[in-house]
């Protein structure tokens, strides 16, 4: 099946080729904004902002697979969940029922989630990168669901469907503001590393594989190895986000690994714009903010987000940043949208 390079696709992905022309100012504004949140807003909104940060990192890691590599994963939450469980299980062992944890143990538990998620991504990715398109999507979904059911039914080790509760951070991080700044530091550092990766030659190989896998292979690039590496990197950063999640909500549950949790990363990325580095983050802000706001007065949150997604898919396929980018281009004299797709060539018959 050959998929032609449609104008919507070109518009959607153009942002990834301009070294962050739009993403840099957006991220700079956001970073300053997030630094100021605790000074300006109340406790509830600090809590919401923290969720935006953690899920934003999760969505950012997902976009390494989607926006940059061109594959869609419906099992990405598996690594988010593995990170959360890796942290939570060690956390539970350290507290030993007392409900108290030392600072050293706290950070050790946080760190443990990351290699657990990475190990999961090594195994799952090994098989997933052998496939593309719909098959990649369903295989990742199947692995995610398999891990979900293993954690769901392994009562002795993971707590089964009860999950693990009472993950109370040490005293200093118990109040909203210090934990918020911890999240901000970790998420900002992770985002910086991901940014560096996407702007490296490796990052451009990812874009090449997305645009034309066959041609990339002809250049002598081991496509599977690069896809696998990228899958593991994405899974690792999902694990970082997951590790932060447990102590943030004070609990973990198997649904963190489910495909609907993966769907959240997909939604965020789409809302913000998968063609921009900052897109998933903008999506996380919009999604989480609207959710916190809408659920305050209606139970019909799925209907609300469903209509939003429908509108974006139909009318703004490039997401919010894509629309913003197009608006800026129009103001400057309509030059954008034609000379941006630097890496594209004729599409292969796959």
């Amino acid at each position, binding site marked *: 099946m050959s998929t032609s390079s449609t104008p*919507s696709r070109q518009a959607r992905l153009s942002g990834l080729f301009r070294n962050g022309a739009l993403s840099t100012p957006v991220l700079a504004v956001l970073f300053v904004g997030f630094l100021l949140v605790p000074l300006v807003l109340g406790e509830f909104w600090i809590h919401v902002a923290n969720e935006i940060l953690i899920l934003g990192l999760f969505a950012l890691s997902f976009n390494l697979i989607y926006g940059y590599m061109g594959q869609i994963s419906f099992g990405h939450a598996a690594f988010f969940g593995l990170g959360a469980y890796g942290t939570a299980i060690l956390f539970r062992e350290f507290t030993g029922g007392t409900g108290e944890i030392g600072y050293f143990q706290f950070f050790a538990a946080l760190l443990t989630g990351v290699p657990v998620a990475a190990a999961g991504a090594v195994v799952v990715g090994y098989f997933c990168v052998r496939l593309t398109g719909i098959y990649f999507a369903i295989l990742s979904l199947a692995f995610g669901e398999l891990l979900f059911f293993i954690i769901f039914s392994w009562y002795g080790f993971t707590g089964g469907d009860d999950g693990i509760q009472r993950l109370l951070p040490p005293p200093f991080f118990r109040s909203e503001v210090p934990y918020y700044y911890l999240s901000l530091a970790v998420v900002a550092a992770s985002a910086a590393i991901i940014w560096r990766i996407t702007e490296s030659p490796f990052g451009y190989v990812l874009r090449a594989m997305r645009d034309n896998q066959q041609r990339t292979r002809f250049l002598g690039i081991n496509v599977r190895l690069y896809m696998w590496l990228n899958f593991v990197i994405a899974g690792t950063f999902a694990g970082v986000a997951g590790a932060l999640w447990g102590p943030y909500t004070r609990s973990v549950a198997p649904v963190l690994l489910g495909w609907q949790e993966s769907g959240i990363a997909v939604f965020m990325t789409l809302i913000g714009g998968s063609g921009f580095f900052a897109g998933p983050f903008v999506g996380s802000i919009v999604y989480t903010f609207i959710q916190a706001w809408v659920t305050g007065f209606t139970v019909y949150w799925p209907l609300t987000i469903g209509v939003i997604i429908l509108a974006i898919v139909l009318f703004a396929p490039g997401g919010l940043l894509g629309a913003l980018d197009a608006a800026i281009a129009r103001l400057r004299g309509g030059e954008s949208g034609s000379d941006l797709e630097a890496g594209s060539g004729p599409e292969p018959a796959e």
Partner: protein
Amino acid sequence: MSLEPNFLFTQLLAGLSRAMILFLLSSGLSLIFGVMNILNFAHATFWLFGGYLTYSLFQALGGEGILMLVLAIILGSAAMAVFGFVCERLLIRRMYDRELPEQLLLTFALVLIFGDLIKIIWGVEDRAVFLGIEPLQMFDTFVNPYYFVIITVGVAVAAGLWWFLQRSHYGKIVRAAVYNRDMVSALGIRIPLIYAGVFALGVGIAAFAAGVFLPLMPMALGVDISIIVECFAVVVIGGFGSILGTFVASILVGVVYAFSVLFWPDGALAVVFLIVILVLIWRPWGLFGTEMRF
């Protein structure tokens, strides 16, 4: 746990009737994917919506008697087929030259929207139809004879669909459209109508399945979410676009599920996903699919 033959027999019947619901859903899913290349996440949600609709029609027709249920099922399926036709013309049509993720997201948005619409219209209570059928004594155990109705209906739809695709005029057009839509279009056949028709057929069969299952399985919120993932499993195991493959895979998944529940109640679906993983690794185009679309 008793593993006596009569117990295994009832379990097998339950598994086979579960297989039929999976088949009736997956055949539409597979057909739509085969012809239009769209993976319809909302298929099970339309199924659920059709079930609630048929329930309401049945209540409006008096709420008792098998004849009235049959009438309600026919009306419900027809209404949902029309709905499917309109849905394709209004929304799905716009997605044909989009990328896969965007197609998935559009249909997933429909899952969320229609899931909530069901909640708004019918509330959160489960809806079922009670026919008052006497259990049948077989092999020293009691069996709900409705299981046999369901299995018969499932096999009949499978045979009918096979006949439609292989023998009928329109079926041949549909199959030709799978291979080369430009050529079919060049022959003067209106591809957009064929597409809308296939989508309507798929949604109609799904609604029909929901109606037939009403006496056995209550319609409940959220069932669509779990069943659509199982349908993906069936379609992948059987191979996209193959009716025979979908049928065999449905029976495999239904029966495997029914027996894994016995020894791993929480993780029966995990066994199904393990099969999916093995099939995708070993034969990504499925047991009965061809490599064409891979």
